[in-house]
């Protein structure tokens, strides 16, 4: 018991001080003390519920990806058949039931059609993306393979994550976290956010921009009834546009899509001083825009964003040079609206709609208030626990108290090194740890008392106390660890923060309450050689 070789002392102190010192930057905070730059500067991050900020979980609808893919396939098939030499006539095209089916009008073309289709259905990757079947001699049925569908969702999510990241970066917030989660989700965490509404607005929009010519042949009554003439399609006017609630028919083909867009930013109309969005096309987009505008001077076109018409102005003159300006229609854009639109266009369009399925936002004031109240509670609790320990166990209580202090510092230090996050439930975890950490010392000290009562001499009693109590201490902490690990595995967000503190606290409390106090007690016994102890 009294034998404590030097290497063991050095090891114990080394481990203790290493982790306890790592807590210093967190305890004093950056800026309050001069922390040398050369030293590592680990700090515990504050969770969004303490620091304030937003946690948003976005979810994509995989069936939408499949539907878009089906649409694109239809387009590819039509193009392939049209470009075949000689042209292959097809008809009765349908995309119902998640399958693309069509009929080749001339039976003699069937083999040729199959040949044209093969490169399309095999895709670019290693997996086959479509199954091809010919029924009733002339009907082709294309079905998406499961692997193909998975791959499509996966790549859509990958680019969606990039788009989300770009949009948030353009918003100019500090240190956002954007992580893909599972097959079809994206987690967005933005600390210290002033306006969560603006963020949500940005994330929700796909931002698919299109310029299409208005179909002058469509009859107004039919358009209002939602019937589009052949070759046209109908879009509703957006809220805040010149005809909210109205609809307009536009030519399906011959427009320009946002794919040719290379930049967008907020600007102001020099005459009206209204907020506008300046957009810039790449070379091809610029040429097409110049052609479209010069051929249609005096005619109306529609600016369509996410399938809603935001404005339907008239080409006043040919727009050459590859840049254009979008104004907000009748009511104009507010500066925020224009800036949001610019960010959305700049970041590109989302390949899939994202729904906000979970949002947790905490204002910075509430977070600060929680920290203050939590710290006060921890302080009062610690003082009460320490007073009880010292009153009950005297010198041994002082050792236990010192162990407790090192314990708390070590938890913070380890959390800082692991770069983990302290959440509001994590504060509760601290309190639980403080209450439970002294348990090991209570077990040991009570056992020493018992052994003394049974007549053992001081050193033997202390030795037996530590030895006999350790078994229960280990068993109890391991079971607690199991519960904590499951909490970490199944928990989410702030609750995981509770689990982390709990788990780290278990390890450090065994270390400090058993090993450290033992070293101190041994040191004292060796020096003082007491024949009786007050316990």
């Amino acid at each position, binding site marked *: 018991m009294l034998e404590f070789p030097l290497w063991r002392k050095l090891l114990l102190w080394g481990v203790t001080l290493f982790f306890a010192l790592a807590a210093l930057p967190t305890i004093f905070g950056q800026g309050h003390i001069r922390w040398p730059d050369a030293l590592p500067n680990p700090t515990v991050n504050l969770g969004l519920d303490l620091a304030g900020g937003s946690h948003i*979980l976005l*979810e994509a609808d995989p069936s939408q990806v499949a539907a878009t893919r089906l649409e694109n396939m239809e387009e590819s098939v039509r193009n392939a058949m049209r470009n075949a030499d000689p042209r292959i006539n097809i008809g009765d095209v349908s995309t119902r039931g998640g399958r693309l089916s069509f009929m080749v009008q001339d039976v003699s073309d069937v083999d040729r059609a199959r040949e044209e289709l093969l490169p399309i259905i095999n895709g670019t990757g290693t997996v086959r993306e479509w199954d091809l079947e010919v029924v009733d001699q002339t009907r082709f049925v294309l079905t998406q393979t499961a692997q193909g569908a998975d791959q499509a969702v996966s790549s859509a999510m990958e680019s969606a994550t990039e788009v989300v990241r770009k949009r948030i970066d353009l918003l100019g917030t500090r240190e956002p976290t954007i992580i893909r989660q599972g097959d079809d989700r994206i987690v967005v965490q933005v600390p210290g956010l002033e306006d969560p*509404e603006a963020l*949500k607005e940005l994330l929700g929009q796909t931002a698919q921009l299109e310029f299409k010519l208005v179909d002058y042949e469509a009859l107004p009554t039919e358009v209002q009834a939602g019937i589009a003439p052949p070759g046209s399609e109908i879009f509703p006017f957006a809220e805040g546009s010149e005809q909210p609630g109205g609809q307009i028919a536009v030519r399906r083909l011959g427009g320009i899509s946002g794919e040719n867009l290379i930049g967008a930013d907020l600007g102001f109309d020099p005459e009206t001083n209204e907020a506008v969005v300046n957009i810039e096309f790449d070379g091809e987009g610029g040429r097409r825009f110049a052609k479209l505008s010069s051929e249609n001077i005096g005619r109306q076109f529609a600016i369509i964003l996410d399938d809603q018409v935001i404005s339907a102005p008239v080409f006043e003159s040919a727009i050459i040079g590859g840049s254009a300006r979008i104004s907000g229609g009748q009511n104009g854009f507010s500066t925020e609206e224009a800036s949001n639109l610019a960010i959305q266009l700049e970041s590109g369009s989302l390949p899939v709609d994202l*729904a*906000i*399925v*979970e*949002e*947790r*936002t905490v*204002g910075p*004031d*509430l977070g600060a208030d929680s920290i203050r*109240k*939590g710290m*006060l*509670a*921890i302080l009062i*609790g610690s003082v*009460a*626990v320490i007073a*009880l*320990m010292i009153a*009950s166990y*005297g010198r041994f209580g002082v050792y236990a108290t010192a162990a407790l202090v090192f314990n708390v510092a070590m938890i913070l230090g380890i959390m800082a090194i692991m770069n983990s996050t302290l959440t*509001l*439930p994590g*504060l*509760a975890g601290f*309190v*639980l740890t403080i*209450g*439970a950490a002294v*348990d090991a010392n*209570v077990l040991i000290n*009570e056992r020493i008392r018992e052994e003394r*009562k049974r007549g053992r001499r001081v050193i033997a009693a202390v030795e037996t106390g530590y030895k*006999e109590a350790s078994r*229960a201490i280990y*068993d*109890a902490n391991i*079971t*607690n660890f*199991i*519960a*904590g690990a*499951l*909490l970490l595995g*199944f*928990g*989410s*967000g*702030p*609750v995981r923060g*509770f*689990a982390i503190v*709990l788990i780290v606290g278990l390890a450090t409390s065994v270390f400090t309450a058993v090993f450290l106090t033992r070293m101190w007690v041994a040191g004292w016994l060796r020096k003082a050689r007491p024949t009786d102890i*007050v*316990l």
Partner: protein
Amino acid sequence: MKLLKLVPDDTNIKFLRWATPFYIFSCLIIAASWFLVWQNGLNYGVDFAGGQEIRATFVGEAQAPISELRQNVSQLETVSDPVIQRFGEDNQVSIRVKLPPEAEGNPEFANQMTEQITEVMRENHPDVRIDGVDSVSGKVSGEFRNDAVLALIAAMVAVALYIWVRFEWQFGVGALFALFHDVSLALGMFALFQLEFSLQIIAAILAIIGYSLNDTIVVYDRIRENLKKYRKMPLPELLDLSVNETLARTVMTSLTLALALIPLLIFGPESLFGLTAAIFLGLVVGTYSSVYMAAPMLIWMGVNSDSFIPQESVADKQERIAREANRI
């Protein structure tokens, strides 16, 4: 210096004398708890029911306009049965709305409700400060529910297995029953008082499981020790002895934990109250169950002093008999 001793030396309380009545009492309470859970249901918070909760402060106003809010919010088309309460200071409120059945198929429903309610508040009170927003869709809340149930069951089974391995199977069963008792009572309490049941409460219950086991293991450890030491002592007497010997520790630990938790209940942040209260409940229930549920179980499961004596294997026995035979 005279030290504080909460439990006098040589206590000899006949705990086990009351084992049977307490067992009956506890089984009734467990049944009542499950009946309450079945009858009243748990008051699922936003985490588990889906829906939204907004906490807001009406800056510069003495009182939050609760009745006005109730009227305005109820008039929203998407909102049904909002729960509007004071939360914290006089000018702070919490507005909770659960997902209606029509939210199915619209994952953004909760989020849209939040936006509308915020807008209504801002309309009449431009200075309102939104302190916190939680909005959870039906699918996500369903996943939280599944995960929570899984975590609770997995935790109970895993720790019972551990105790079985470290002690004997009877101890594992006893601990499992004590845990079942604690978790049932916690759930019953939440069903009875219709306290909000959230993810944080799952964390609290897992903490209760951990703590209750702490107590159980300390008592079990002493029982195992005494079983080896006093081979002739009748089991009920031995259990009483073990509980009495560890009583000082039990009281001390419960007290220190209570001392740490009570300030958190009184001074801690409002949003931690549920979590702390649940852990506090577990502290009381867990201590009781270790003494009255986990220990007496051992009598009925037939633990005896031979439980921890290594059994002689058949091969060893044959070898010994052969050796003894040779000696003769």
